[in-house]
């Protein structure tokens, strides 16, 4: 990445395909406030930022700011430019995302920013909980950043994003990774344990998808596992091998953004797409094939 903001030289990161996509909490504590660097908090809980955040960090809410209010889709180029301008983010800025729940939502925001081609986007390893566990400073003061002239960039849905027809055409041709819990994968339930029902009429998984719950990529403290551990999980056990194309999905695309980040940036798979329609779409569509149980299942004959 061509940017004035240096990469974090933490030894663990050097083993990843693109370790410059990660920064540590120490690095953030040291570099926060530098011109050209914006820290963005993105959480599931809409109030968490207000209770205290990394000093100077701005909030981007996935639900109210990144989604179109009418169509089930992300904001368009104009909407994104307006949002970036209001947040005081320039096209050249380095953005470091962090958030709750082991960075699910931070990874989700990072992925959406990537659809708009914002180049230098990074994640803070371990997210909000690590920062808090280390008793680092939190502030309730909302930063006032000057509005910017962010260009209107058309969203590129063809590279990092998969839609249902492409997923259907992929069966048997390219690997699918289902990152939900084993109970959701088998079809015993259609939503996360302890989470409310989110409206899928059928339970199960897309035929041929390998089950790799997202949390396998994370350590207890929410940081990413080492490059070697990740290779063992995805490349070997899940059988991705040297696949040149992978599609990941979950329930609404948030947990699979976490896995997308791992495959794309940490393991260096070159063509990884997130199917954000995920189970809330597939599990409701008339006539698409579904497999129940813990086996991946066969490609249905047509």
């Amino acid at each position: 990445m061509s940017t004035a903001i240096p990469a974090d030289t933490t030894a663990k990161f050097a083993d990843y395909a693109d370790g410059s996509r990660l920064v540590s909490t120490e690095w953030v504590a040291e570099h926060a406030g530098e011109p050209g660097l914006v820290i963005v908090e993105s959480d599931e809980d809409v109030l968490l930022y207000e209770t205290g955040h990394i000093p100077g960090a701005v909030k981007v809410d996935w639900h109210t700011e990144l989604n179109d209010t009418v169509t089930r889709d992300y904001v368009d180029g104009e909407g994104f430019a307006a949002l970036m301008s209001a947040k005081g983010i320039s096209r050249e800025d380095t953005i470091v995302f962090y958030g709750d729940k082991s960075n699910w939502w931070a990874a989700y925001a990072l992925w959406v920013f990537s659809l708009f081609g914002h180049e230098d986007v990074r994640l803070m390893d371990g997210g909000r909980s690590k920062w808090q566990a280390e008793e680092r400073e939190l502030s309730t003061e909302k930063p006032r950043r000057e509005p910017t002239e962010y260009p209107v960039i058309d969203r590129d849905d063809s590279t990092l994003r998969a839609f249902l027809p492409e997923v259907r055409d992929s069966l048997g041709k390219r690997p699918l990774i289902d990152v939900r819990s084993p109970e959701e994968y088998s079809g015993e339930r259609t939503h996360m344990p302890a989470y409310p029902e989110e409206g899928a009429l059928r339970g199960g998984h897309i035929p041929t998808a390998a089950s790799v719950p997202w949390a396998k990529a994370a350590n207890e403290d929410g940081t990413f596992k080492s490059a070697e551990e990740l290779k063992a999980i995805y490349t070997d056990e899940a059988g991705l091998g040297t696949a040149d194309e992978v599609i990941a999905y979950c329930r609404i695309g948030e947990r699979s953004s976490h896995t997308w980040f791992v495959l794309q940036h940490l393991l260096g798979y070159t063509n990884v797409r997130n199917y954000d329609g995920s189970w809330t779409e597939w599990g409701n569509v008339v006539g698409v094939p579904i497999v129940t149980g813990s086996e991946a299942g066969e490609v249905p004959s047509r």
Partner: protein
Amino acid sequence: MTADTDTPVTSDLPQSLADVVTDFAETDSSDRLQLLLELASDLPELPPRYSDHPELLEQVPECQSPIFLVTEVEDPEQGDEAIVRLHFSAPPEAPTTRGFAGILYEGLNGQTAEVVLSIPADLPLRLSMTELVSPLRLRGMSGMLSRIQRQTSERIGKITE
């Protein structure tokens, strides 16, 4: 149900709850989260008789974050006139859920069983927050309300197990 921009109906709510609904409606949408945060902060700690005995609380699985609640009724033999006391346990890392609990506490704690049982199920939709928080979270608040009402009914003997 009225849209966010309209004034929500409060005529069928007790004054305490009507005040909360009106507060939200009259607060600029950019400040509503701050108001919710204040209600989250005002939620009292569990008294020791419950914090030492978490098994006495009922979980609300509709909420995305772990929340537990228990409803107490003073002098349940007074039936509809009996006074209802609410206790909640929600972690600080789930401020939105705490805020919803705070709304119910502010609006319903100390009310009579009759008032508690009269609260309409669409209360969460009247809080002018449908654009700020996801529908799932509002459903979590409905889950809390329905449990409070069921526990109240049980305590005053309207539901016998």
